[in-house]
């Protein structure tokens, strides 16, 4: 048995009081895909950041291909043939793909030659690994999927033979994810070693050879993927049994709560994002909107939530609401009984520098029960917050921590606690479980279903087909700002939805459907 | 004044007066430069309490503070320059800058080949208008079809310390034909005289004798004998006679300077005519209009 490509011995790392990594040892064999799972805040990103020289370990040794290597900074890591795709991409937003790729790996003081050389290599690499990117596209104009490919290209361009990916699929659509894994397998076949951090057990099972589990900063287990099961992993991770499937009674749809007619949205650049769509959501049901990110679902949510203006008619409980006038802001929406869990919790849903209890009042700061005369009644807010944080089992259950020092999962719980406990008639939810660990996912899903069962209407937007299928009572697919049709979860499957998301309408078992299967088969690289 | 001493003109003159007295008499004097308006009254009181006598202050801005303080220290004699404060123990020294400026304006117009002369003031305030107005009158008197270009440097304190802008204003005036410029702008004036010298035109200094700054390039200086005022005050010492003291051409309070640095520039007949004009002014045959008298100027608009 050969030398491990990477061996970490007794790595420890503390951030002030937080012990992020405790005496962690791990061996990663060359030419394998090694998965790492763990709850939010378990220490996965930290460990990998140490391996990549982004953070400095307090204790511990790193061996690369058997030889002890010190990695004081990323430069050393790159020299050691390590490449990393961070959870939060490290790209320069207003640079082109090409510029981002050569940054730090330029040859020569002048850019010209580097760029021409890079362009060639890039096209070569792109062809070799199906990493199609437009070298001249500017990062802030391209989707996360392509941004991620850029990150991978960055690593490959630096001749990395060890590739670390931190939650790569958190922001990808199924199709994109499939493509990513195809690429990873190809890289593996090339003999490269891959470390994959993810919250999705399915990916672990499908893609990895070995999997390590982390908990509270410690490495609790390392097992062969072939010798384990999702349920077992989940248990190792969370320390208790986890329901991986949402169990929910069939819905009893009631009155129409939300009626959308011919809604159009034009963004600030003048691009039409939503092209006249119509649908309705009834009390006591969850309508899931599936779609590839960037097809208008975000804008749809934002208009409903009062974050941008649009045209058309929207009725809530039969009453029309203002789409562009002075009552089209988020405040008036809330007054109409609409609660909104935004797609980007860190940028929109929370003020990261505010204490947890302050964030509980966020958006509802006008609420009379938070006021006492001219001032805000902080004690009341705090009391309210403590209750919500306790009921939603936010960890650590400390109102006085700033939002930014909670893990993504717990940040999300804070937002949900705030919005759901408002007991709204209509709940708008965007990407409820992005980047959140399975323990939290289970909890969040339960909360959403519970709200439905209280007879509330819920509009769910997610790029996670699994999530859509398991939560929704009806599924609508959005493509290029238009609804491609509606399905009942029972009567459809990921294949069909995947196709609709790609813009192909299809009646079950029609000719299109066949074509689809063929194509999907091809996509998965196995014969039909 | 807030302009700070060593502005090569006003405050420097005052300071020199004091030092001259100190050197000659071997006595010592306390002096202070101020940073804030609130410190004027403070300084006066502190010096008075410390028994300084007399207390001399240079600059109209002291007027108000002195008004407050003078009464409280009847045994201390105060001397204020450029301002009239009516109190039994105050000597108010005012200069007839308009007369001095008239003379240099006269000389400027005589020297000018382009019949265009310039004036550059620090800030548009009454005192500076007084300078400008006298200057313009003199120029017109020497040659009725002289054009007088007038600029003010700025509206913030920086206006008194901006030689660069002074230089540009000078160039702007040159481009309009001016070949003699008169600067009454503190530190800014340094830039004016410099640029004038560089561009090969003549300049006129102010307050102190600034001829030496650019020998042969400075036509003359409108000297305002602040130094004398201070010197005399200190000489007279405690119990000096108070009341209004007007320093004009008559008592050498103001005048133009002639020394080795500019004698080449001033021909004898020119000197003769100018001195004659001076005589007339002293004799009252020529009445130089004082801007402050009615806040109008016959030969210049602000």
């Amino acid at each position, binding site marked *: 048995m050969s030398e491990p490509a990477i061996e970490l011995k007794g790595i420890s790392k503390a951030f*002030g009081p937080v012990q992020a990594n405790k005496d962690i040892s791990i061996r990663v064999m060359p030419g394998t895909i090694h998965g790492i799972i763990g709850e939010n805040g378990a220490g996965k990103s930290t460990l990998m950041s140490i391996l990549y020289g982004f953070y400095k370990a307090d204790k511990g040794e790193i061996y690369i291909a058997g030889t002890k290597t010190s990695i004081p900074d990323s430069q050393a890591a790159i020299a050691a043939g390590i490449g990393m795709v961070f959870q939060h991409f490290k790209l320069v937003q207003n640079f082109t793909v090409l510029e981002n790729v050569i940054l730090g790996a330029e040859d020569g003081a002048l850019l010209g030659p580097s760029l021409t050389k890079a362009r060639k290599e890039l096209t070569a690499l792109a062809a070799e690994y199906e990493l199609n990117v437009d070298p001249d596209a500017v990062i802030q104009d391209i989707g996360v999927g392509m941004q991620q490919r850029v990150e991978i290209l960055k690593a490959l361009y630096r001749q990395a033979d060890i590739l670390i990916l931190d939650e790569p699929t958190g922001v990808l659509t199924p199709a994109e994810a499939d493509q990513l894994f195809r690429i990873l397998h190809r890289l593996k076949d090339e003999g490269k070693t891959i470390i994959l951090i993810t919250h999705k057990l399915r990916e672990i099972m499908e893609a990895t050879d070995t999997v390590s589990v982390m908990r509270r900063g410690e490495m609790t287990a390392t097992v062969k993927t072939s010798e384990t099961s999702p349920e077992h992993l989940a248990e190792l991770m969370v320390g208790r049994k986890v329901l991986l499937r949402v169990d929910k009674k069939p819905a009893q749809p009631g009155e129409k709560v939300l009626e959308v007619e011919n809604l159009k949205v034009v963004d600030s650049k003048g691009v039409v994002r939503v092209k006249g769509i119509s649908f309705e959501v009834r009390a006591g049901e969850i309508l899931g909107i599936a779609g590839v990110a960037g097809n208008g679902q975000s804008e749809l949510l934002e208009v409903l*939530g*009062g*974050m941008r203006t649009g045209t058309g008619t929207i009725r809530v409980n039969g009453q029309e609401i203002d789409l562009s006038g002075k009552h089209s*802001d*988020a*405040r008036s*929406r809330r007054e109409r009984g609409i609660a909104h869990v*935004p797609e*980007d919790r860190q*940028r*929109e*849903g*929370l*003020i*990261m*520098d*505010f204490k947890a209890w*302050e964030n509980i*009042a*966020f*958006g509802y*700061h*006008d609420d009379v029960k938070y*006021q006492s005369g*001219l*001032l*805000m009644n*902080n004690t009341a807010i705090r009391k309210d917050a403590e209750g919500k944080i306790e009921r939603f089992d936010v960890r650590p259950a400390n109102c006085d921590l700033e939002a930014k020092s909670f893990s993504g999962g717990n940040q999300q719980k804070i937002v949900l606690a705030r919005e759901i406990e408002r007991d709204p008639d209509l709940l708008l939810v965007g990407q409820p479980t992005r980047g959140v660990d399975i323990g939290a996912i289970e909890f969040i899903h339960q909360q959403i279903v519970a709200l439905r069962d209280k007879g509330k209407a819920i509009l769910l937007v997610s790029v996670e087909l699994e999530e859509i299928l398991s939560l929704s009572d009806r599924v609508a697919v959005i493509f290029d700002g238009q609804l491609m049709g509606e399905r009942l979860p029972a009567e459809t499957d990921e294949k069909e939805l995947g196709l609709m998301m790609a813009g192909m309408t299809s009646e079950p078992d029609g000719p299109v459907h066949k074509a689809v299967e063929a194509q999907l088969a091809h996509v998965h690289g196995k014969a039909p | 004044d*807030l302009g700070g001493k060593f502005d090569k003109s006003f405050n420097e003159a005052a300071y020199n007066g004091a030092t001259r007295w100190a050197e000659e008499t071997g006595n010592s004097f*306390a002096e*202070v*430069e*101020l*940073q*804030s*308006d*609130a*410190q004027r*009254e*403070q*300084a006066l*009181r*502190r*010096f008075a309490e410390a028994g300084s006598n007399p207390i001399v202050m240079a600059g*109209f*801005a002291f*007027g*108000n503070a002195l008004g407050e303080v003078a009464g409280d220290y009847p045994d201390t004699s105060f001397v204020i320059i450029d*301002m009239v404060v009516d109190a039994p123990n105050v000597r108010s020294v005012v200069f007839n800058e308009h007369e001095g400026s008239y003379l240099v304006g006269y000389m400027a117009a005589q020297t000018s080949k382009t019949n265009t002369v310039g004036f550059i003031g620090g*800030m*548009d*305030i*009454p*005192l500076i208008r007084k300078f400008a107005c006298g200057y313009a009158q003199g120029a017109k008197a020497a040659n009725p079809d002289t054009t007088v270009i007038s600029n003010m440097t700025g*509206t*913030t304190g920086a206006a008194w310390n901006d030689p660069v802008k002074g230089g540009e204003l000078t160039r702007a005036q040159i481009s309009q034909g001016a070949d003699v410029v008169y600067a009454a702008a503190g530190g800014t004036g340094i830039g004016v005289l410099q640029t004038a010298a560089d561009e090969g035109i003549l300049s006129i200094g102010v307050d102190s004798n600034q001829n030496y700054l650019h020998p042969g390039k400075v036509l003359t200086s409108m000297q305002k004998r602040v130094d004398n005022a201070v010197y005399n005050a200190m000489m007279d010492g405690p119990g000096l006679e108070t009341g209004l003291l007007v320093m004009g051409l008559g008592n050498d309070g103001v005048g133009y300077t002639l020394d080795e640095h500019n004698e080449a520039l001033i021909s004898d007949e020119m000197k003769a005519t100018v001195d004659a004009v001076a005589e007339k002014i002293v004799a009252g045959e020529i009445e130089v209009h004082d801007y*402050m*008298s009615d*806040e109008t100027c016959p030969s210049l608009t602000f």
Partner: protein
Amino acid sequence: MEQLPKWADLVVVPLVGLIMAFVLSMLMVLVTGHDPIQALKLMVSGALGSTYGWGYTLYYATNFIFTGLAVAVAFHASLFNIGGEGQAAIGGLGVALVCLFIPWPHWTIALLAASASAAVFGALWALIPAYLQAKRGSHIVITTIMFNFIAASLLNYVLVNQLRPRGSMDPATAKFPEATHLPSLGDMLGAVGIPFAKGTPANVSLFVALAACVFVYYLIWRTRLGYQLRAFGKSQPAAVYAGINPVKITIITMMISGALAGLMAINNVMGEAERLILGSVEGAGFIGIAVALMGRSHPIGILFAALLFGALYQGGAELGLWTSIPRELVIVIQALVILFTGALDNMVRLMVAKVLIRPKRAEA
């Protein structure tokens, strides 16, 4: 970096920084050939050693509290208001007009009216930059800088051509009528039997300034407006999500900021000079930036920073009066204080941490 106990962070670190700044300054005094010990004594005793010194220290501090608060309020909405200088100057105009042209029966009413007018004038002077920032995205830093210059020109014109009494050399308004003269700290404390030097400029406005501190504290941390303002300052997209109107917040914040800066005029114009002179703000607007930054945009911090600068001003004045040490030395001292307690505070913190935490480690 090591975690310091809160008390150390709040007390020890600034103190050490202050000491370092003074040590350096005194070295400079030594170099320029004066006696540093004497200079230090003179400064400290001159500023804090007597009620007379306090009378001046507090006067300057009052100015800096107002301008410091002005900058701080804007900072909380992540707006950088460099316009305090101009807003305070225009505030002075507001005070002058009210005091000169309306006959007031008693200073109390006059003070109320003057404060209102100063605040309104200051706020209006901040309104245009605020509006342009909110509506047109014109950068507030440029516009406020420009408005400082414009204010200077405006006052120069008004004072020389309009408000100046005929025949006066001084580009300043006439003296305000007796009824508008504010009682000085000396008078007030004297009235209640506390001996305090008369004839010092500190006056009742000091209490207005303190009230302003309390007001700002409540505004920022206890009111709905403050909540929205801080949220907006932290994240604009989030503010929109929460239904906070960016335009409204920007304009209101800047107007409050301008009003605070304008209020300074009741101290220097109405309280001290009792007339409006040219350049009456004397850079207090810019000191306000340093004060706000050093006070970490918190009223308490600003209070202390303002006192510090007030003391430096007064101490500096004493130096000027009794030694031949040039007044510029005081500016250098101010610079070093800002540097060590403001910009290099982390360096100081590190040093303190080494001293404080090492021994603890040893014990453990």
